[in-house]
């Protein structure tokens, strides 16, 4: 099984993904963001929260490429450090969503019957809530911390994954190799984890990559509204809050963090679409 998976990645998936130029650009940007978040302290001479009363709201210059904010902090530095937050939020939130969604989808699809109906009605109910309202309410009442933000974005974003996994499981369940596994006496848990899960993962991989982009957008919107990451910790969203407050004097406060979000989300979307095409046997070119 594992050998087959590795050879599939090496022989089919990776060459196909490599041929997709846009996906490779996306992957490159994603890797670059990882590097930036790890090396942020070495990339800039400034401290992200060092207040400097002499350099308040300076336009972009040689010393401050992205200008400075209302407290004289270097915007480029804050944007670089902000990459850490968005990366963390993206991955942890989607990790939670994928784990929960896969578990629900596997159980619902494998057991069927009333278990399936009950779990899918839960999915329907969760989908009725404007998720942004739900997230806002929970976070505001629980006092925002980055862990709560990640947990709540994850807990309100698992329904799509659950539906995807369930649909996959419904077809896989009827395969001969599952019957064979059952005949030799495999337990349900073993069948689900060893035989069904690995084969149901490809749509999850696509949904997760696109989901990271969505989570980053949600976090930035929350931080923008003042309910997300709290200052002085820099996040792209909360830099934009000062961008809004000083919109009449300081365009650079709005422009650069927004571009950072745009580029990051675009990169994850391109990568996600690329993975989708590479996994889809119908689009072999």
């Amino acid at each position, binding site marked *: 099984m594992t050998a087959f998976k590795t050879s599939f990645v090496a022989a089919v998936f990776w060459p196909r993904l490599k041929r997709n130029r846009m996906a490779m650009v996306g992957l490159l940007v994603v890797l670059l963001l990882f590097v930036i978040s790890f090396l942020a302290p070495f990339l800039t001479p400034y401290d992200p929260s060092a207040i400097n009363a002499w350099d308040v709201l300076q336009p972009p210059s040689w010393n401050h490429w992205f200008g400075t904010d209302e407290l004289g902090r270097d915007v480029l530095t804050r944007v670089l450090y902000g990459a850490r937050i968005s990366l963390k939020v993206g991955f942890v939130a989607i990790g939670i969503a994928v784990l929960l969604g896969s578990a629900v989808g596997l159980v619902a699809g494998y057991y069927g019957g009333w278990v399936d109906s009950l779990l899918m009605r839960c999915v329907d*109910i969760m*989908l*009725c*809530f404007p*998720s942004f309202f739900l997230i806002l309410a*929970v976070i505001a009442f629980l006092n925002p911390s980055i862990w709560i933000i990640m947990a709540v974005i994850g807990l309100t974003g698992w329904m799509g994954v659950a539906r995807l996994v369930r649909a996959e499981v419904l077809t896989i369940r009827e395969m001969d190799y599952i019957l064979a596994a059952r005949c030799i006496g495999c337990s349900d848990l073993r069948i689900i984890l060893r035989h069904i899960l690995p084969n149901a993962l490809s749509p999850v991989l696509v949904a997760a990559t696109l989901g990271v982009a969505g989570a980053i957008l949600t976090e930035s919107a929350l931080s923008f509204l003042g309910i997300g990451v709290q200052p002085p910790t820099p996040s792209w969203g909360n830099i934009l809050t000062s961008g*809004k407050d000083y919109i009449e004097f300081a365009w650079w406060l709005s422009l650069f963090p927004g571009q950072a979000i745009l580029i990051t989300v675009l990169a994850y979307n391109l990568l996600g679409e690329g993975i989708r095409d590479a996994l889809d046997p119908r689009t072999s070119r």
Partner: protein
Amino acid sequence: MTVYLLRRIAMLVPLMLGITLITFTVIHLAPGEPVDMQMAMNPKVGKEARERLTKFYGLDKPLPEQYFTWLGRLARLDLGRSFSSDNRPVLDKIKERLPITLSLNLVALLIEFGLAIPIGVLAAVKRDTILDKGITVVVFLGFAVPTFWLALLLMYFFGVKLNWLPISGLHTLGYESYSWLGRLWDLTKHLVLPICVASFGSFAGVSRYMRSAMLQVIGQDYITTARAKGLSERVVIWKHALRNALLPLITLLGFSIPGLIGGSVIFETIFAIPGMGQLFYQGVMSRDYPVVMGILVIGAFLTLLGNLIADISYALADPRIRQQ
């Protein structure tokens, strides 16, 4: 059809119960009691007053009992009174703000679909040409632009830089003195930017969806038949193909309601529009529990209703489902 309808409507009951249960749980997850929040703002209130308030809101009872009391009041459309200083019934507050949010979203939805459908069709028909690729690039950018950032840029450009459009509220100060035409013009100017931002939200998604639906339809036999019998390309695409490609869009419309309502928080806060999103945001910030619970429930019920209408319209539009 009748059976389908009845079954569909019967399904609403457990879903509604689930919605109320989740709303109740979410609100009571919060550490501390709602009364603490009111007390914290006004430290002068004594212990006695505190107990009176606790009793008044029934907070001294066990949680299940509280839930059923709340549910019972909800069934009579009693959402309680706001914790804020005006202390008005939540239902009244929502009632005066809901029309603003709904009509704004409706206009935005019309513009969004009105643009996204032709663009999606065009991209499908001209597949793999420069036009299609150009549209794809724009669509991908559209997916990635945070709406609140777009709002900021538009505000800066049209409001601050060019000074063409007002950037907050619905009216200019002293608009009451204008003629009705002047008032309408004033309102329109205030609405241009918010509606742009609101309709941009899922524009990319809809046009992408339209493109793939159209591609699927164009590949089918009856389209080849229509072409073979000599119909003009215009009739084939815009009459034969489009009708079927539009079907899945009805479901999409139903699904987009929660996103629209959720998105209204962002643009109503930025542009200072007194709609439901702004009310919710203010409620959340001041921990006005009855307002937050009320809007959560009503928002979810609206979505449920929207999905029901979408399903019924789908059944009406698609004879294959209607005749089942």
